[in-house]
């Protein structure tokens, strides 16, 4: 399983999984996007660099960058083509592929990424991420 959505009265909570750190970042990005739009095609490319203070902060800033791109560049993620995470500097670089926001019907609008119950951790060699999105 790449990710799953958990019960939450007003907001959206997901848990993403991955065998490596890169994989769990990719799956978290997918869970984030699929909470708004199920399928996105498109060939627009976007390059991002994101920094954080620790791993949780890096995850938060990564997802917030994806949200920022929706409002400011009209870019909605289809998939993460490539991602490199520098664990020493808590810095990542990613190649994104996506499409124009205006071509899609959104199920919901994410207002913000939150620190509520935010988890980024390794369990028996597998990474788990949990995020609550304010919608």
């Amino acid at each position: 399983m790449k990710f799953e959505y958990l019960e939450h009265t007003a907001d959206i909570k997901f848990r993403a999984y991955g065998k490596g750190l890169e994989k769990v970042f990719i799956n978290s990005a997918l869970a984030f996007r699929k909470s708004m739009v199920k399928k996105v095609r498109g060939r627009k490319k976007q390059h991002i660099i994101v920094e954080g203070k620790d791993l949780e902060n890096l995850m938060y800033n990564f997802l917030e960058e994806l949200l920022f791109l929706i409002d400011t560049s009209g870019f909605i993620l289809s998939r993460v083509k490539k991602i490199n995470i520098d664990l020493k500097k808590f810095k990542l670089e990613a190649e994104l592929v996506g499409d124009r926001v205006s071509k899609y019907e959104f199920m919901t609008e994410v207002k913000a990424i939150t620190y509520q119950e935010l988890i980024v951790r390794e369990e028996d060699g597998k990474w788990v991420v949990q995020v609550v999105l304010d919608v």
Partner: protein
Amino acid sequence: MKKISKNVYEIEKEGKMNVPGRLYASEKILKDIQKDKTIEQIKNVAMLPGIIGYSSAMPDAHFGYGFPIGGVAAFDLDKGIVSPGGVGFDINCGIRVLKTNLKLKDLKGKEKELLDSLNRKIPSGVGRGSPFQIKGKKEFKEIVENGIEYLVEKGYGVEDDYLNVDEEGCLKNADFSKVSERALKRGIGQLGTLGAGNHFLEVQVVDEVFDKKVAKVFGLEKGQILIMIHCGSRGFGHQVASDYIKLMDEKYGAKNLPDRQLVNAPIKSKLGKDYLGAMSCAANFAFANRHLIGVWVKEVFEGLFSKFKVDTLYDVCHNVAKVEKYKVDDNLIDVCVHRKGATRSFGPGRKEVPLVYRKVGQPVLIPGSMGTASYILVGTKKAEELTFGSTAHGAGRVMSRMAAIRNIDGKKVKKRLESEGIMVRSGSSKSLAEEAPEVYKDVEDVVGVVHDLGLSKKVVRLKPVLVVKG
């Protein structure tokens, strides 16, 4: 928890709570509220420094980010804190109501054309930018520091559009220098957009009048067509909230807090003041947003109905923090009231109430869930005594969005509403499922509680006719 009297429950002070909690609910509503962790959140808020009186929750309360939705808390200006979680991400999410000179029969045969025209004119959903182009950073600053008045000066709308609303459509302590570049970038293309989620634009009809005297002062009568606009500060406000949650987390941390989401800063501190300055910018953006949508709604109606007249009845914020005066232990003092999913409900005489309404109290605008009734009530002295001048803000969610999408078919919701004579336009059928009436508490119950308690009094009930869902 102890029942004090009908519809009033007290959560007794224990552990680190500085004050007791108060929940205003009927027995039926209480059962819904107890399904999630709302009561735990009321207790958590009671632990914050400088809180005065009670940590309160209105009958539409449910679990939220840090503070419960429906939560009201007032803080001492010297010892107290301000918390972005006590305002919410959608700063100055609120309601604007316009009153028209049309009657229900005037719409006959034109409903579809009107609904489609409104749906075309008012951008809704995600990614539909606004036709209103803000001219760079300079004009953005003007808008967020001056609110509705700036737009009126530019020729959008009339003076009464800001004189007759909360705070005259502008929180005066707005300080654009406290706003991040990222927040500006998220907001600059979004002035005059509804957004998504539970936001909407409805054409409604006055279906019942409860208080003829006050209805007359408000200029309302049975059969009259009104327009209700529900939206907030869009990506701009969301980013201001996110920015300051991060800054407060870094500066003060969450070590002494029962929950990391309650991060805050002393009201007196630089960061506390900065947040209030930036939050006020977002609040003013939201006022301007609802106002601009109102101006476009007017244009659509004018194109379809000759001799059409429209006035702004009122505009309320239901996600905000404000400094207001209250009698505490016989002294009149300034406090910082957080209302998160709660509406101000000032009674007669308060100087904050526009002159035209000051004799009776301010209009209180409470929307129901999609397809159900909404209410206009009037503010009371009782609210000032019990809840720092606050009342409910809506129906209040009971079912999660995910559960709603799983269990409810949006297309069926649309059909059912149509069979009741309510026409709906929506970006997606999934969003119809998320906002279906059954995922909310019954607005009749919520309004019943605030009316019985005297937190605000019913004036008229409104029935939806046309709905544009965000």
